């Protein structure tokens, strides 16, 4: 009983802190960073559902985010669709794309699926670049001012009140999913496809659902990214970004509830603290991810739970 109370207290404390932050923090840039964290958390938990919990390797998440970003930006800028319709629409449409791209998952083993999703990510980026009539090609799309109803979201502080509540809601749903019959079915698919089927779990239904959910989350994340950065272009959603999405999961801890959150915080905040990382971001994060996947596959969360030093060194000595 006391564990439950401690958990509740922790959550309430975090919520209070999150709500209070914009009133305590003055610097706009700090809010921008917090917004980015929120956005990456959204995209990472969605990816965790399909990759971590359902065991389907998906290297197309950055592409999904790009689709969400473009749909949101173009809806607002070109079609004058209000934000409160554009953003959910981006999520839903990207979920639809997720279903389509999830089809290969139904027939392909891991290696092929990795290649297929990688190819899809590249294809999505190519479409962004070449379908100039719609996407404006390499020039990208700028969003200058966004209103949520009557309120102008013209500062990072104000955007925070859009991004963080959405992130919190999506995290809540993510936790629900994992702890429910749905989550258990996804894990069953990952652990043993044949046993899952014999217990009545349809592989097609659940794999497709997992991709759809990851598409929805990435779509919303991408849409918010468009608002926060104010600019959408193809370069932000290519192979490098996919690497970041994977790295976040690996570093944080794949298939753990808090992993994606820890990984996202690390990904966004570390380059702010260690500026040398910025220029070599891809190299640094792919290298860190590589080190984690070999020596600490449980990620940061695994380290925190399992206790660090002796275990890690033993493994290093064994593996070298």
């Amino acid at each position, binding site marked *: 009983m006391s564990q439950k109370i401690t958990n509740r207290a922790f959550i309430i404390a975090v919520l209070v802190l999150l709500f209070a932050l914009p009133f305590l923090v003055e610097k706009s840039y700090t809010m921008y960073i917090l917004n980015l964290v929120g956005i990456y958390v959204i995209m990472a938990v969605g990816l965790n559902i399909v990759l971590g919990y359902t065991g389907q*390797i998906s290297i197309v998440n950055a592409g999904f985010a790009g689709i969400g970003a473009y749909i949101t930006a173009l809806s607002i800028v070109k079609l004058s669709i209000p934000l409160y319709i554009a953003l959910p629409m981006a999520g839903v449409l990207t979920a639809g794309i997720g279903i389509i791209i999830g089809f290969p998952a139904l*027939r392909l083993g891991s290696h*092929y699926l*990795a*290649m297929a999703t990688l190819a899809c990510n590249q294809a999505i980026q190519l479409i962004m670049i070449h379908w100039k009539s719609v996407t404006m090609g390499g020039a990208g799309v700028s969003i200058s001012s966004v209103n949520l109803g009557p309120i102008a979201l013209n500062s990072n502080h104000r955007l925070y009140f859009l991004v963080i509540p959405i992130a919190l809601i999506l995290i809540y749903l993510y936790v629900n999913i994992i702890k429910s019959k749905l989550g258990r079915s996804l894990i069953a698919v990952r652990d043993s496809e*044949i046993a899952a089927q014999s217990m009545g779990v349809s592989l097609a239904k659940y794999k497709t659902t997992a991709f759809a959910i990851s598409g929805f989350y990435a779509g919303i994340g991408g849409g918010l990214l468009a608002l926060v950065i104010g600019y959408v272009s193809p370069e932000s959603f290519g192979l490098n970004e996919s690497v970041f999405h994977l790295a976040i999961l690996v570093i944080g801890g794949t298939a753990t509830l808090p992993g994606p959150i820890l990984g996202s915080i690390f990904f966004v905040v570390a380059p702010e603290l260690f500026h040398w990382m910025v220029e070599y971001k*891809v190299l640094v994060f*792919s290298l860190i991810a590589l080190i984690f996947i070999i020596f600490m596959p449980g990620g940061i969360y695994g380290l925190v739970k399992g206790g660090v030093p002796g275990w890690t060194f033993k493994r290093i000595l064994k593996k070298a």
Partner: protein
Amino acid sequence: MDILQLILKSLSYGSIYALVGLGLVLIFRATDVLNFGQGQLFTMGAYFLVTFWYMWKIPYALAFLMSIVGTAILGWVMERVACRPLLKAPVMNSIIATFMTGIVIYNAIQLVWGAEVYHVPPIISNKPISAGKIIFTAQDIWIVAITGFSILLVYLFLQFTKLGVAFRATSMNKQASSLMGVSVKKVFSLSWVMSGILAAVAGVLLAPVLMIEVGMGWVAIKGFSVGIFGGFSIPGTIIGGFLLAAVENIFGVYVSMAFKEMVSFLMILAVLLIKPSGLLGIEVKKRV
């Protein structure tokens, strides 16, 4: 352009695809790992040549050799880093590991050599020679010859040397091989080293034909395509390499140059839909 001429023109590229695909297949058959960093081995081969021969002016033959050795070492390192530690881990971890390794190397190359594009002069003349209606260059012959020679060496190695036989045994059944005293670890290292060698040969051969730039690794996709086409069998992959290059060229001329790249994707799609086990490949079903 004559179809026959097109086919001849595609021999160079076909050789490269075959070599890169062969490297992939060797690794996959021996270790069950699909090396997502294969393209970087190819790129390293080319960059090593640029550095040794073009920049440091080391004589070609020696530079060729050094490039091969360098890439072979890289292959060995990749195996120790991204393959061996993860043998007992879930498949996804090893996929992510080789993928990340490829990315690390790609970025490291960019760091060391910069983003400039290099051009390497051909070692063998590429002046056109005509035989009747057909035009080809001495370089084409050189590329195909070296490729053929390399493949022959691989074949002889696998058939007639002790380590080669160990490799074939391990590819078929790791457990049994291990029980029979085969050093499976050695075979693993060997497969990655051989893959590095083949990729380097491909890189060196193709260096004069392509622009040398960081993104050269696109060849890997071709390697995957022909590997899948060949069902990860050695002869199937080699045939697939030449077939893909020929079809690409024909497609480029008769259908659309811009979408030539689609052919390799279409090839994968066709194989997966029609005969997933590929040409001469073995279908693997999990026994329950």
